[in-house]
């Protein structure tokens, strides 16, 4: 996909990948280190961080969202896909277009409605881990789904252009 785009979009795309990959590495590493140190502290020093469990659960949420965004970038979301492989050329592209626009639309809707949830949480000043505003941690949900929607929109446009040019889908 990226080869076809040029200039600023391609550069943004590369930057996005880099950020996602780095985030995944960072999040996973923090989870491993925090969870292990918690066990060591508890068993050998009879202590621990009171906030650790909550932070770990937030890290998990972030990992899930960034992982899901990365999965959609390679079009590697879990899917059933039994029919499309039997469809001939153009029909296949048409099906892909439909599916990808549908996915973009659904993800966009989730992004919008979870944005409203996060906004409410900001207005009502929900707190996490004692005195941190919850919306900061929750905002990964609308952000992630918006990125997924964007990715599938780009896929959908590419597939649509293949339908018009009468070629088989590539993805």
């Amino acid at each position, binding site marked *: 996909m990226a080869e076809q785009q040029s200039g600023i979009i391609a550069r943004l795309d590369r930057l996005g990948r880099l950020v996602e*990959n780095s985030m*995944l*590495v960072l*999040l*996973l*590493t923090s*989870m*491993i*280190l925090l*969870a*292990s140190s*918690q*066990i060591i502290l508890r068993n050998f020093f009879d202590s621990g961080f009171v906030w650790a*469990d909550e932070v*770990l*659960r*937030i890290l*998990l*949420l972030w*990992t*899930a*969202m*960034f*992982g*899901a*965004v*990365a*999965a*959609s970038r*390679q079009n*590697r*979301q*879990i*899917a*059933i*896909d*039994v*029919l*499309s492989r039997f469809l001939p050329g153009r029909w296949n592209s048409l*099906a*892909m277009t*439909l*599916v990808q626009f*549908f*996915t973009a639309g*659904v*993800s966009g*809707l*989730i992004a919008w*409605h*979870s*944005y*409203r*949830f*996060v906004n*409410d949480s900001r207005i009502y000043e929900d707190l996490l881990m004692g005195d941190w505003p919850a919306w900061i*941690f*929750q905002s990964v*949900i*609308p952000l992630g789904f918006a990125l997924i929607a964007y990715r599938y929109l780009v896929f959908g446009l590419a597939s649509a252009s293949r339908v018009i040019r009468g070629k088989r889908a590539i993805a």
Partner: protein
Amino acid sequence: MIIVSLLLVLLALLGAPLFAVIAASAMWGFANTDVDLSVMGIEIFGLAEVPILLAIPLFTFAGYLISESGAPRRLVRISNALLGWLPGGLAMISLAACALFTAFTGASGVTIIALGALLYPALKEAGYKESFNLGLVTSAGSLGLLFAPSLPLILYGVVAEVSIDSLFLGGILPGTLMVVMLAAYSFWVNRHNRAEPGKFSWIEVRDSLWEAKWELPLPVVVLGGIYGGVFAVSEAAAVTALYVLIIDVLIMREVSLRQLPRIMQESMVLVGGILIILAVSLASTNYMIDSGVPDKLFAMVEALVDTRFGFMVALLIFLLVLGAILDIFSAIVLVVPLILPVAQGFGMNPVHLGIVFLAAMQLGYLTPPVGLNLFIASFRFEKSITSIYVATLPFLLILAVSVVIIAFWPELTLYFLRD
């Protein structure tokens, strides 16, 4: 309503990501019952409210890392040293090694790639028949799903709200049954194969054990820790991830620091794919429970079958079909919340349901048209998919028999759970 459902099923069959299909059905349901759709955000945030989920990324990462190291080769060497002298021993080694490996790496197909690639040529060299080898390696690739700390077991525990420890205990005997039945079959098929078994050598046993000295403590610590009540499951996952990271990257240096980001990223893509489905399913499940779908389903099933026996037959047929079209993770997340209340209505223990569910789904890895193992094996060993179907068939049938036994003999699952 029906048209929308059919449309969603069609989209799913055309290859729409499952998370989108599930989310769409949940939002459609909420919208129709005048629930504010910002509930989607609340439900997805629910991911951060289930502490045990932490085990999923940690075990997945550890599994990916293990399969990139020299551990598969060492595992085969030890098994060979211990069992290679038996007639038919190599087949049994393959089964045992695959089961252990899958339990730790989570049945995402890595077993066939990491272990199958070592075992397949070894079996051939030992004089086993081509089609037997293919079938064995392909079907062994998902063996071990029922053993701790396999990912599907953990996910079932999360979704069904059953204690993971009981699931781990419940899986021991049924999982062993599957391995034993396949081993017996391998033994029987090769009874005339007089290929010379290897010799038993204490020196080889010692050397192979020594070579694996860093990995050997891992199953002991993790399984001992979980079963002995020292660790919670997510703690065991953290210990495993850290330990594997230290031995593979720092001590044995089989995985370089440079490779590490790629492995982390790849494993987290799988985790993201699973957890996003779980997240939207939290929403769709809540919608379905609110609107009483499980009760209606129970009433419907009760009208069709009235005995526990009849229910079990229907359940098995349903699960076989399900396993052939859905991957195990999506199936757990989507279907378990619906059938659990029904099964309990028929007096079925939730732990037993989980083991039956996973055992039946394990067959799904091997059933056409979409069985994952079939494709991976076809790809990895460069054989046509039809030849893999044929080679796997006897193994599939034996596993099917074992699933029936597991389903109709609940005591097997519940043996270690009696008070």
